[in-house]
């Protein structure tokens, strides 16, 4: 497939935002159970939510560049019963709304006790919004990933690993960002967040590595023989019916040499996993620059990872476009 930068930015930006929100609420939950010190709610949860919201808005804005008719985008909420894209279109704004309200509750220090859990733990609106946001963040990961994973003839995507990768890679970049952000606003949480960022990054390395190994062994189900229904083992295309390009030759081919693909693959393995990991471990003691560097590296790596994700997918329609003339 031809990697579209609109979609690359959409999925990486909202992935980081979802991970950041999950990191914020994880820290809040731990703090509620007195497992972590209570940070400055204004600065950490309030501004952290704002940061997540900025990423979400940027991702949403990027997605509009993918559309032929962005002014009709509202229509995309119609077919949520059958289309994962439609579901994403619904869940993304819902998640943005909850992140906004969650940040607002912390920003305004609005913490009325709504009820008390059996252990004597007070439940305030931010806790309820946090749980709702967590559910929506995971729902959004699933929707985004299922857009690709549900397409059965794109074998590289049609796997549960796609969903796991989206969750883990979004989570890893979000927790890394949260650690860098905490280094500036809530230093007492840095060790916790950087530690989890490292763990999720490591898990991401395992699942993305598994999908790389899986995809390298795939055997295409469709062949030129099934594509045109002629069983002879030797078929060569002589012309695809036109000499200039068409949508079929632009949308489904990345048009780069194999060496570029291999280079991008190793760049993202380094950028997403191998470089940020030691930076995160070193940053557990604090250090804004180290952690910000880890996030910048990981985000850059994720752009490459998403590019590779699209470029690697081999669409069966390409069988019909092997030779110009």
């Amino acid at each position, binding site marked *: *497939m031809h990697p579209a930068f609109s979609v690359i930015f959409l999925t990486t930006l909202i992935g980081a935002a979802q991970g950041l929100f999950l990191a914020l609420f994880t820290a809040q939950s731990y703090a509620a159970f007195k497992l972590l010190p209570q940070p400055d709610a204004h600065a950490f949860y309030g501004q952290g939510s704002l940061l997540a919201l900025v990423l979400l808005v940027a991702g949403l804005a990027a997605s509009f560049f*993918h*559309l*032929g*008719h*962005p002014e*009709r*985008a509202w*229509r*995309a*909420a*119609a*077919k949520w019963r*059958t*289309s*994962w*894209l*439609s579901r994403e*279109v619904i869940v993304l704004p819902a998640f943005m709304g909850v992140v906004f309200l969650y940040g607002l509750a912390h920003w305004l220090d609005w913490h009325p006790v709504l009820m008390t859990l059996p252990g004597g733990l007070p439940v305030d609106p931010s806790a309820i919004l946090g749980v709702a946001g967590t559910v929506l963040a995971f729902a959004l990961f699933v929707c985004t990933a299922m*857009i690709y994973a*549900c*397409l*059965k*003839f*794109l074998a590289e995507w049609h796997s549960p690993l796609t969903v796991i990768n989206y969750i883990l890679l979004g989570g890893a970049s979000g927790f890394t960002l949260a650690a860098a952000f905490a280094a500036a606003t809530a230093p007492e949480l840095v060790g916790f967040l950087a530690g989890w960022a490292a763990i999720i990054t490591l898990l991401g390395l395992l699942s993305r590595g598994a999908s790389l190994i899986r995809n390298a062994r795939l055997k295409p*189900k*469709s062949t*030129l023989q*099934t*594509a*045109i*229904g*002629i069983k*002879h083992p*030797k*078929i*060569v*295309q*002589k*012309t*695809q*019916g*036109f*000499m*200039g*390009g*068409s*949508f*079929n030759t632009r*949308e*489904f081919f990345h048009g780069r040499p194999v060496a570029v693909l291999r280079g991008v693959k190793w760049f993202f393995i380094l950028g997403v996993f191998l470089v940020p990991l030691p930076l995160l471990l070193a940053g557990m003691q604090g250090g804004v620059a180290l952690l910000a560097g880890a996030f910048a590296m990981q985000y850059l790596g994720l752009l490459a990872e998403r590019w590779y994700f699209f470029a690697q997918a081999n*669409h*069966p*329609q*390409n069988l*019909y*476009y092997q030779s110009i003339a």
Partner: protein
Amino acid sequence: MTQLALVIDLNVCVGCQACVTSCKEWNTSGEAGPMGDQNPYGADPTGTFFNRVQTFEVGEFPNTETVHFPKSCLHCEDPPCVPVCPTGASYKRKEDGIVLVDYDKCIGCKYCSWACPYGARELDEQQRVMKKCTLCVDRIYDMTMAEADRKPSCVKACPTSARLFGDVHDPESAVSIAIRESGGYALMPEWGTHPANHYLPRRKTRIKIHEDELERADNPLKVDRQLPKPAMSEPTLDDVTTW
């Protein structure tokens, strides 16, 4: 239930591209808007087409067959492009099984084109919406046309009658008979899309002429033969009679 479809006979398609140009001519002139072209007279022309004819060489020289392969939307009975559409712009008509795109609802997200294993859909760069073969839906029901013209434009244009059009769910229709009796098959059956369009395979046509079909075997003495045999230069019966 009706399922309109094309049956394309690869045995007689000569790859003349008449279906390609007639399709473009008809569908670019309709009220749905033009099928835009970019850089049409430049070095790298491109544009929207609903139908293409490709050419494949099967076998190894010298034992090769050239197969011309017309390719358009197959109007699948279980179209994978329809459920993925987020707006409902892509739909399959209940009454005749045609898969259509509502150009006023399409947001141009291209997701349906990813979901089609055949590459049958193209984004029109001018209108910024997804387009595909409509089976000339604005033609086949047009009562102002003579009945013989109520067929897709490509079918009308084909000089070798390689394109048949009809209801593949009606077992007595010409297309159903052709599929049944001439080995009609579907493309990429492995995906379970059940394309409505079918293709008829190449066939070897051989005639065996027996000696007794040239000479009357039931008349060994040849009593009715004109004797002596007329010379080759003499006029034949065809030359002298009007029958």
